[in-house]
């Protein structure tokens, strides 16, 4: 007890100081928070999410190649791009105005076989069929993310799966084509989580920028990319029989 006592006192002092520091950060309101939501729709907007994978697995497996990755959403007027960057792969989705025949392009930017699909609206809807007829339950639970007050909303898919989100109304929502899962959310989602089996994936906004975005960010690459034809009935591989190649 005599040995622990000084440590306890020191810990108490440390905690008190730390709480004070944290309190300052939370209570401060940077001017970025006072964004005029009416302008947000027409100005360039970039949001970067950090991806955190929580796995219940004891061994290190493929999920670690996505853990720590980022997802960036770039929006500028009628153009948008979502880019996933992880150890395993870099992949982008490009969105253009509805008037074009293929308003969505999926591009795999990494690996030996880089490719792209040009998708029609219907084809893109097939990818997001799971989000049709979903429902959204709003709650008063709140969370500060990047100093934005976020409210909780739970999205229930028709098959019972659910997504937990925290959104801010300080920015106008994206076009529902860009993030079909969030089409019912009256703002921009700054955090969302999906739990599956013993694990979960959490996307948390790490950065928001309204700086102008370079045009070539929205330019679909051509050189070195194979143009693949989308097939809705592509082969479904039985991966249940795949061998256990996790690492102890």
């Amino acid at each position: 007890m005599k040995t622990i006592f000084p440590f306890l006192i020191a810990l108490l002092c440390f905690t008190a100081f730390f709480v004070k520091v944290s309190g300052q950060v939370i209570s401060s309101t940077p001017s970025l928070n006072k964004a005029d939501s009416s302008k947000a729709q027409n100005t360039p907007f970039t949001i970067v999410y950090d991806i955190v994978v929580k796995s219940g697995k004891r061994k290190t497996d493929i999920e670690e190649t996505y853990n720590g990755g980022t997802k960036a959403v770039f929006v500028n007027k009628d153009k948008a791009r979502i880019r996933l960057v992880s150890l395993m792969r870099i992949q982008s989705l490009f969105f253009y105005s509805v008037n074009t025949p293929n308003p969505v392009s999926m591009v795999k930017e990494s690996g030996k076989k880089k490719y792209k699909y040009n998708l029609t609206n219907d084809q893109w809807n097939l990818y997001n069929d799971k989000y049709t007829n979903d429902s959204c339950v709003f709650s008063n639970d709140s969370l500060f993310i990047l100093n934005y007050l976020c409210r909780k909303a739970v999205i229930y898919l028709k098959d019972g799966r659910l997504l937990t989100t925290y959104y801010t109304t300080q920015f106008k929502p994206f076009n529902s084509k860009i993030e079909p899962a969030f089409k019912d959310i009256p703002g921009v989602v700054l955090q969302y989580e999906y739990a599956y089996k013993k694990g979960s994936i959490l996307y948390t906004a790490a950065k928001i920028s309204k700086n102008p975005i370079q045009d070539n960010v929205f330019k679909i690459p051509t050189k070195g990319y194979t143009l693949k034809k989308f097939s809705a009935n592509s082969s479904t591989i039985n991966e249940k029989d795949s061998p256990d190649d996790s690492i102890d």
Partner: protein
Amino acid sequence: MGKKYTDILKSLTHWDIRPPAYLFKQIWQTITGAQNSDVPVFAFANFADSSNDENTNEGYSATEIDIFRSLQNHSIPPPSFSSLKLGELIAEKEKSSTGKKASILNLSNFARAAAAVLIIAVGIWFIYNKKGDTNNIVATNTNTTNNVNTGTSQTQIALPSQPANTVPGNHGLMAITSKNNVIVEHGKKIKASQHLKESGGLMDNDILLTLVSYNYTEYLPLLAEIKKDHKITLDQYSYVSVSDKMNDVLQKMYATKGNNKPTRKAKKLRATMEKWKKRDEKHFDINTNNNPIDIIDLSEFILK
């Protein structure tokens, strides 16, 4: 004069006086308290005379022999204190010795407490400075309206408040450091770091492929950088935070033997990485119904 005294002293060295025969008896009677006057004085005198001769009892009376025998069985009882008292005495002794040690321990505690306070003070200073930097960065970011194309100086954009959950071990997540303020163009090889720049960028624009294909000697500086920052930065908006688990795997993957060749485990890990790559390609590239950018599609693949 002096010579005369010296001679006397020399002659005295050989002079002796035998004690009277009854003296021993009187002494013995004083010791034993006996008043046996029957004991002949000469017998004691004999005993005294023959005290050096242990092998003979001749000349001793039966009374004397009895006395001797009784002396053989004579014992002196220990002082009258119980085992309990003995225990108390030991405890008291220990207590006194513990007390002495306690004073030494107190000094040790003081040193420990001082060390703890010092460590915590350094910790507080570090956190406070980091918070201060973060606030400064936030302020800078708020006031910045530069086009992302034009800026080339180093820019730090930080999270004003850390999200509730972060990648375990992602200590570098508080600040996004970018050497290039421009979003990377397509078709160009993305530079993950200075080391990657020197070695020609990412192999096939693929981080994992680059790490798996990396030369052992070339990897060491990159490994050091990953260990330091816990992340690989591609550009302002693209970075990968390497988790502790993955960092551990990468380090094992680059373990070498004495002859600089990869260990058996390192080879096995590389093979495992390649298997992961194939699994991922099968799921997302061959089966076009799956979208890795979609949270549900990704979760149900990697967490199954």
